C-alpha cells in the first residue's frame, strides 16, 4: 500500500505492526517539522499507543508545553507526537484540542481500539473499505485498490451526485464499498464494531443570536484572528511560500505574512494564455506593493489537455471543470523552486461570504417576496453582466431560469437550485442503464441528512452550509486542492479555514458578510489598510481555466478520441454513445458551449478516464499505484 502513497510522502516511510498481528500502521513522510526526529508511526512513553498521521497540528507548540506540564515525556519535537500524548490526557476529546488539518489513525493497544479521524473541514483525505475480515484505510484510493482482489464498481448514485452537486456526498466516493471518513468525523473500531461520531460541524446562530459589536471592532477581531491563524501556519522547519492569485483572499494572506519582515516571502501564481482567465495584472500589483519574490507560469490550453489524464489519476474521481490541472502545474512549480509548503486563500469565500451564488440567492430571495415584480429579477444583470446581451430574450431566460423554486424560497436548497439545475442538465447524457440504476433524487438525499437546526438558520447561513459541505470539502479542498498539491509532494495550508476563524465568522450577522451585494464586507474592512485600494474594490474573479476548448482547439488527442469513441462509451456503459457523439461534434465545431455542455463533456471524459484507470486496468496496478502502459 505504501508505495502508492509515495508522492504524498517522498522523504521516508515506516511501518508499525502490532505484535499480535491485529493491526498494522504504515506511513510515508513529507518532512516539514522536526526533519530528523519525526519518523512515523510514533508512540507514547510505553509504546502502547501508536499513530500514523498526515497533516499538521499547528498549535503543537502550546499543546506540547501543556502536556509536558502534565507529566508526559516526548522523544521528538514533532507535532505528530502531541497526538498520542493528547489522547492519553484527554481521551477521545483530544481532537477538540487540535488546531490543524489532519487524518489520524491511532491504535490504542491497551483497549484494542483503532481511531480514524479527519480534520474539521476536509483538507486532508482519509479513505477506508471493509473486506471480509479487515478494515483497510489510506490517504488515497489507489492505495486501497492494491488490497482488493477484484476491480471496484463505479457507484451510479455517486455519478448522480457529481452531476448535481459537482461532488459525491460524503462519505461516498466514486466506488461502491469505498468510503471517506467525513470531515469532522471520528470512526472507532472496537470489538469488531465500527462506530462513527461527529466531533465538529458547521453551525450558525438561530434567531438573531449573532455577535454584537461595532463593524470596526468586529473587523479588528477578525484581523487579529486571521493574523494568528496565518502565523501559526508558518511554523515549519522548511521554508514556507504562498499562492498569490491577485484576488482579495490570497493578497490579504500575503500582506499578513509580510508583517513579519524576518520572513523572506516567496509567492507563486498561474497566468493564462487565454486572457479571459488571466489575473496577472493584479498579481503584479500585489508583488510590487509587498515587494515579494514572485514566480509565475503561463498556462496554455495544450498543457491542460495533455495533463488532464494525470489530473484524474490523482483526483480519483470525475470532475466537471479542468481547473485542477493548472493547480497541479502550479504545485510542480512550487516544488521545483525548492518549496514544499504553501499558504493559500481557499475558504475565505465560504467562511466570509464571497461567492456570486450567495449574491444570486440573495436577489432571488428578494424577488421571491414579490414574484410578480418585473424589475427585481433584473438585479441579476448587475451580477451577471452577460445577461444584458439581448434584452428581450434574456429577460425571458432570467424569468425562467432564475425563477426556479421561487414559489418555495424556504426549501433547503433554494440558494443552490440554479447551479444544481444547470449541472443536472448533463444527466441527459446518462445511459438508460445508468438511469435505471438510480433510485432517489440526489437533492432529496441531501435534504434528509441536513442538521435539524438548518431550517432555523438565516438563508445566507444555509447557503454557506451547503457550499461548505458540498463544493468546498468535496472539490475545492480535494480535487482542486490537496490532490493537486500532493501530486507534487506539496502541502497546502489554509488560514481562512482555521476553526477559530470559522466559528467567529459563523457568528457574524450576514449583513457583515455581504453588505448589499458587496461581498466579504468585513474582510475588506479588516484588511483595508494592508492592501492597495484596487485589490480591495476589484470585482471578484472566480478562479477558472479553459474547459472543453482545451481538448478540441489543437490537434487531435489520442486518449480523447479513444475514450469518447462510440465503442468505449458503449463498453463502459455510463453514457449514451449517440448523445455524446452529438455533443462531441458540437464541441469540435468550435462554437461557444453552454456551461451545461462544458461541464457535461469534462465530466464524461473524466468518468471514462476513471473507468480506464481504475477498472479496465485494475489488474495492471503495480505496487506504486501506477498502471503499466
Amino acid at each position: 500500500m505504501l508505495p502508492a502513497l509515495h508522492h504524498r510522502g517522498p522523504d521516508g516511510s515506516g511501518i508499525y505492526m502490532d505484535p499480535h498481528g491485529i493491526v498494522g500502521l504504515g506511513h510515508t513522510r513529507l518532512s516539514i517539522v522536526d526533519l530528523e526526529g519525526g519518523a512515523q508511526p510514533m508512540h507514547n512513553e510505553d509504546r502502547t499507543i501508536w499513530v500514523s498521521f498526515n497533516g499538521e497540528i499547528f498549535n503543537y507548540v502550546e499543546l506540547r508545553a501543556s502536556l509536558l506540564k502534565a507529566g508526559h515525556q516526548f522523544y521528538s519535537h514533532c507535532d505528530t507526537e502531541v497526538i498520542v500524548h493528547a489522547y492519553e490526557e484527554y481521551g477521545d476529546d483530544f481532537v477538540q484540542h487540535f488546531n490543524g488539518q489532519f487524518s489520524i489513525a491511532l491504535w490504542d493497544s491497551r483497549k484494542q481500539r483503532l481511531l480514524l479521524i479527519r480534520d474539521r473541514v476536509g483538507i486532508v483525505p482519509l479513505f477506508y473499505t471493509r473486506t471480509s475480515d479487515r478494515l483497510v484505510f489510506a490517504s488515497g484510493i489507489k492505495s486501497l485498490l492494491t488490497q482488493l482482489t477484484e476491480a471496484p464498481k463505479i457507484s451510479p448514485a455517486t455519478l448522480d451526485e457529481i452531476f448535481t452537486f459537482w461532488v459525491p456526498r460524503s462519505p461516498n466516493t466514486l466506488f461502491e464499498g469505498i468510503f471517506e471518513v467525513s470531515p469532522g468525523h471520528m470512526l472507532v473500531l472496537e470489538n469488531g464494531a465500527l462506530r462513527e461520531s461527529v466531533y465538529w460541524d458547521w453551525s450558525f446562530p438561530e434567531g438573531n443570536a449573532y455577535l454584537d459589536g461595532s463593524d470596526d471592532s468586529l473587523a479588528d477581531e477578525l484581523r487579529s484572528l486571521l493574523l494568528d491563524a496565518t502565523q501559526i501556519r508558518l511554523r515549519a522547519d522548511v521554508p514556507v511560500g504562498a499562492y498569490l492569485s491577485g484576488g482579495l483572499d490570497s493578497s490579504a494572506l500575503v500582506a499578513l505574512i509580510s508583517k513579519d519582515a524576518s520572513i523572506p516571502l516567496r509567492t507563486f501564481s498561474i497566468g493564462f494564455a487565454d486572457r479571459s482567465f488571466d489575473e496577472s495584472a493584479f498579481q503584479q500589483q500585489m508583488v510590487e506593493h509587498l515587494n515579494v519574490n514572485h514566480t509565475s507560469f503561463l498556462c496554455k490550453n495544450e498543457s491542460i489537455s495533455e495533463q488532464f489524464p494525470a489530473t484524474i489519476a490523482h483526483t480519483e474521481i470525475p470532475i466537471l471543470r479542468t481547473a485542477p490541472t493548472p493547480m497541479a502545474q502550479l504545485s510542480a512549480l512550487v516544488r521545483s523552486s525548492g518549496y514544499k509548503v504553501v499558504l493559500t486563500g481557499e475558504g475565505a469565500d465560504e467562511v466570509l461570504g464571497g461567492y456570486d451564488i450567495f449574491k444570486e440567492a440573495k436577489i432571488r430571495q428578494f424577488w421571491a417576496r414579490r414574484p410578480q415584480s418585473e424589475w427585481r429579477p433584473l438585479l441579476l444583470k448587475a451580477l451577471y453582466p452577460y445577461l444584458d446581451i439581448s434584452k428581450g430574450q434574456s429577460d425571458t431566460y432570467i424569468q425562467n431560469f432564475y425563477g426556479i423554486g421561487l414559489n418555495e424560497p424556504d426549501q433547503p436548497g433554494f440558494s443552490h437550485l440554479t447551479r444544481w439545475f444547470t449541472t443536472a442538465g448533463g444527466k441527459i447524457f446518462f445511459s438508460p442503464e445508468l438511469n435505471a440504476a438510480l433510485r432517489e433524487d440526489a437533492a432529496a438525499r441531501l435534504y434528509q441528512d441536513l442538521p435539524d437546526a438548518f431550517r432555523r438558520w438565516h438563508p445566507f447561513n444555509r447557503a454557506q452550509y451547503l457550499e461548505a459541505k458540498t463544493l468546498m470539502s468535496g472539490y475545492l479542498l480535494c480535487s482542486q486542492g490537496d490532490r493537486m498539491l500532493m501530486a507534487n509532494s506539496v502541502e497546502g495550508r489554509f488560514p481562512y479555514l482555521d476553526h477559530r476563524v470559522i466559528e467567529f465568522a459563523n457568528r457574524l450577522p450576514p449583513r457583515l458578510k455581504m453588505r448589499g451585494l458587496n461581498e466579504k464586507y468585513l474582510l475588506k474592512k479588516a484588511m483595508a489598510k494592508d492592501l492597495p485600494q484596487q485589490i480591495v474594490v476589484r470585482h471578484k474573479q472566480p478562479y477558472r481555466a479553459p474547459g472543453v476548448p482545451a481538448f478540441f482547439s489543437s490537434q487531435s488527442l489520442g486518449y480523447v478520441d479513444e475514450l469518447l469513441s462510440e465503442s468505449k462509451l458503449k463498453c463502459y456503459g455510463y453514457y449514451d454513445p449517440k448523445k455524446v457523439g452529438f455533443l462531441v461534434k458540437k464541441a469540435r465545431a468550435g462554437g461557444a458551449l453552454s456551461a451545461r455542455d462544458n461541464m457535461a463533456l469534462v465530466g464524461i471524459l473524466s468518468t471514462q478516464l476513471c473507468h480506464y484507470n481504475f477498472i479496465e486496468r485494475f489488474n495492471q496496478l503495480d505496487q506504486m499505484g501506477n498502471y503499466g502502459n
Partner: protein
Amino acid sequence: METNKIIRKHIMESFLFTDDESALQDNASLIAQGLIDSIGIMELVEFVEGSFSIKVDPKEIVPDNLDSVEKMVAFVERKKAA
C-alpha cells in the same frame, strides 16, 4: 432542405443531442424546457445568421422570434422575404 428541417436538425443535434424526431415539438418553448441559456441564445443567433444568410438585429433577439422551432421558421421566412 426546407427551413423547418434545417432548424429542427440543428436544435435536435445541438441542444437535445438526438436524432429522434419525436423528441422535439415545433411549438415547444426552448427556454421553458431549459435547453437555452445565455450562450445558447448567442449560438442560435449565429446559427440562423450563418444558415440562412440573414442579419439578426439585437432588437430582434426576443422569444417571439427565437423560442421555438415554429417561431424561428416564421422569423427566418420573414427576414428572407424582406
